[in-house]
């Protein structure tokens, strides 16, 4: 299909469909599964699927991977205790090969029934329990030869098996945490965690490692779990609590350390680095505020600050393409396309100021040396210089509307940057002065 039409054309057609038609097509593709060669189309559909979040059909692979879903990522950078998503195919293949054909057939039949009753959550968990238990036994016997499995899978097989052994607990906890960015567990989440910890097999701390690793990954402030565990003296024995606190502290340290080490700008680009750094600094701030900072997390904070200080320019913009600029100029009247001359320079400056302020403020709260402070001062001096120059030139602006529109766009762009650095009052004064000069 993609051989006959270009990807762009196909994307345009698929995105032009009405939502209902689109869902119908998605269900068809899903039914076809891997048997049909529809992966390129699914890649295109995915962008719209993320927005629409349709209920997905339950398959053997999806159910099997549920206990360790939190650890799946598209790309692993550094030793972050995560599994590449593409390893799932290998895991499913391994499990299918090891399970008895009769058992596998029975599982598949029950899945077909479950798909007819999508609201039957209990049925899903019951079947899941059986599959996870059987898969854990099967995988425990597997010795991955270097030639037969991806290296990443060989390193993470213990994690996969462990998660499958406590599959129900992993899935329950994952469902008990609300979607998206969550700082801490709420009341029901806390009760659920304690219940799950009490119900773990005899090797409570060993298996709890996976629950704690999941919480470290899901919660923006995993240190809050330490505070929570410290208060659970009625429900958990003291030794277990101490062990669990040690485990989660280790998980936090390794997760933060690995993420800080993975902050390699050259490999992921400035935009992504800034986003990751911001999130990491937020997490570190929360951990520090919870009183759970350790020498390791302090070191991670210093490393991040050093990495950010080492980046020449913290800009995260994609330059406006020249042909697009020309197209805009052709289609819009001059007064609306004026300022395009400055757009690229201003966008870079704005992005730099924005990132320096946001990241700098976060580093300040961590109490480590802030290499971005000097950069902020340098930017302020630069903007002040531009402002003086601009004000000097404004009075000489010719009276024709095109020149006025260009000058106003230049002025207002700078006003915005003054606002970011010095606040709205200074910016408003500058705008008024500039408008007065322009009016002449």
């Amino acid at each position, binding site marked *: 299909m993609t051989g006959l039409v270009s990807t762009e054309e196909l994307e*345009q057609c698929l995105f*032009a469909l*009405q*939502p*209902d038609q689109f*869902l119908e097509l998605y269900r068809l593709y899903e039914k076809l599964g891997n048997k049909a060669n529809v992966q390129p189309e699914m890649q295109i559909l995915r962008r*719209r699927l*993320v*927005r*629409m*979040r*349709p*209920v997905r059909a339950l398959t053997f692979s999806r159910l099997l991977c549920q206990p360790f879903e939190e650890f799946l990522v598209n790309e692993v950078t550094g030793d972050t205790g995560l599994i590449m998503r593409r390893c799932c195919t290998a895991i499913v293949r391994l499990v299918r090969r090891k399970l008895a054909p009769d058992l596998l057939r029975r599982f598949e039949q029950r899945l077909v029934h479950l798909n007819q009753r999508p609201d039957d959550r209990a049925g899903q968990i019951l079947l899941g329990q059986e599959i996870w238990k059987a898969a854990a036994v099967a995988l425990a016997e597997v010795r991955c030869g270097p030639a037969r499995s991806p290296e990443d899978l060989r390193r993470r097989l213990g994690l996969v098996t462990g998660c499958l052994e406590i599959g129900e607990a992993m899935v329950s906890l994952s*469902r*008990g945490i*609300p*979607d*998206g*960015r*969550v*700082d801490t567990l709420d009341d029901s989440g806390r009760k659920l965690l304690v219940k799950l910890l009490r119900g773990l097999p005899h090797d409570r701390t060993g298996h709890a490692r996976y629950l704690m690793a999941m919480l470290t990954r899901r919660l923006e402030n995993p240190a809050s779990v330490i505070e929570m565990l410290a208060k659970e003296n009625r429900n958990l024995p003291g030794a277990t609590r101490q062990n669990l606190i040690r485990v989660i502290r280790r998980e936090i340290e390794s997760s933060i350390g690995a993420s800080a080490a993975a902050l390699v700008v050259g490999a992921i680009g400035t935009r992504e680095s800034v986003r990751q750094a911001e999130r990491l600094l937020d997490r570190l701030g929360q951990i520090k505020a919870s009183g759970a900072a350790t020498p390791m997390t302090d070191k991670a904070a210093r490393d991040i600050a050093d990495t950010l200080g080492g980046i020449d320019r913290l800009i995260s913009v994609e330059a*406006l393409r020249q042909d697009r600029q020309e*197209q*805009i100029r052709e*289609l*819009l009247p001059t*007064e*609306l*396309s*004026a*300022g*395009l001359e*400055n*757009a690229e320079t*201003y*966008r870079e400056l*704005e992005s730099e100021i924005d990132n320096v302020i946001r990241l700098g403020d976060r580093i300040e709260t961590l109490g480590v040396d802030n290499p971005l402070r000097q950069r902020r001062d340098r930017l302020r001096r630069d903007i002040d210089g531009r402002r003086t120059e601009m004000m000097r030139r404004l009075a000489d602006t010719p009276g024709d509307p095109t020149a006025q529109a260009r000058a*106003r*766009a230049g002025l*207002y*762009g700078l*006003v*915005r940057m003054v*606002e970011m650095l010095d606040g*709205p009052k200074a*910016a*408003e004064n500058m*705008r008024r002065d500039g408008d007065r000069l322009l009016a002449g």
Partner: protein
Amino acid sequence: MATELKASVAAVQGGARSRASVTAAQKAAHARRSHYEPSTFLERGTVIPFTTGALAQCRVRLDDRQRLEVVLPGFSGGKGVYVTAFTSLPEITTLSVHDRTLTEIVAKEKVVTPTGIRRCWQELATTGIGGQGLAELAREELTRAAEVQVSTRIMLLLETVRRGGGEIGPEVVATMGSPEGQTQVRAMLGGAASRANTDAVTVAQHIEELAAMLGTLGLRSLPEPGRLRQLHTRMQEFSHAIDNWGRTTVSDLAHVGRFAAMSTDHSAGIAGRAIAEVDRMLTDPIRLMARWDASRKVLHGYLLRIAWLLDGWDYVLRIWDDAVAERIAIDAAVKEIGRIIPIVPAREVDADAGRRSVELFREYRSRVGMFEDWLSGDMDEDLRAGPERQSAGQAAGQAVGQAGEHR
């Protein structure tokens, strides 16, 4: 502006069967309303795209003395709204320079319709005062509208010539972008002009005007839809998404998600019917041009109605998109969406849809949050202070008890 306001009143009246009492709920300025249930678009006001977080989704409208006033959703997360004079906004919160300038422009031009406010914002945002990101967004929007306008004009020309009995060959289509090609096509409008009882120049003018009117919506057959048509599609996607979220989540806010899905369905359904009417009118451009004055007025009314119906939704969708991209927690996003979701005013639609609107407003009011009075929906200060007061009372009681024991 006066023409636009008249047109919007006409559109409002076209939607409702009776004359709308525009200022019924606008008795006093600087007032807090617990029960905010606007019955017309003009009473609901138009969302003004401020960048200051506290003013997100606030609406501007005219009071009974034709002065601008602003309706602010409750700051504390409650269901009530604050109504205040437009000029007093800077006294309520610190405005960004973008917002302050936009306030000045809107006050100067006195616009209260979605199209008017959008035009003011686009003109301001392209200067870069709200940042280059916003400027680019505004320029993209304007460029897209211009592109849609060009494509719409070409499609309408082709359709008009075809319906007039003519045929445009591929060689003419290839040159349609150039002035010579367009002159060539205009010369072929004779058949259509005689069917519409007018001349070819007038037909060409009508097509130009139609294309300009349709810049934000575009034709159904265009590969790249106009802004409003795309917003309508995204609303339907959002409805699916938040409904699925409401049915699968363990969050306490599942019911808010379902309410948001119902409201979205309701608004999208009504907007969809108006869009379908526009599409139906444009299937035969010659018939439309034969009764130009009347058809133009009706079409303008529908387009304005679509703009009113979809007003405020892009902010709702942006919150959701941000949450899906994990920049904020989905729970927080759903809570915010449930608070600000636009509901179609009951008197702007037919009886059935009006009943549905009333049901949705009732559903909105009947949600009782923590520390909220279940009758008014206001924050109950006594209830809120309850646990503290109770613990303070207990402490005081204990202290008295201890004092008694000591005695």
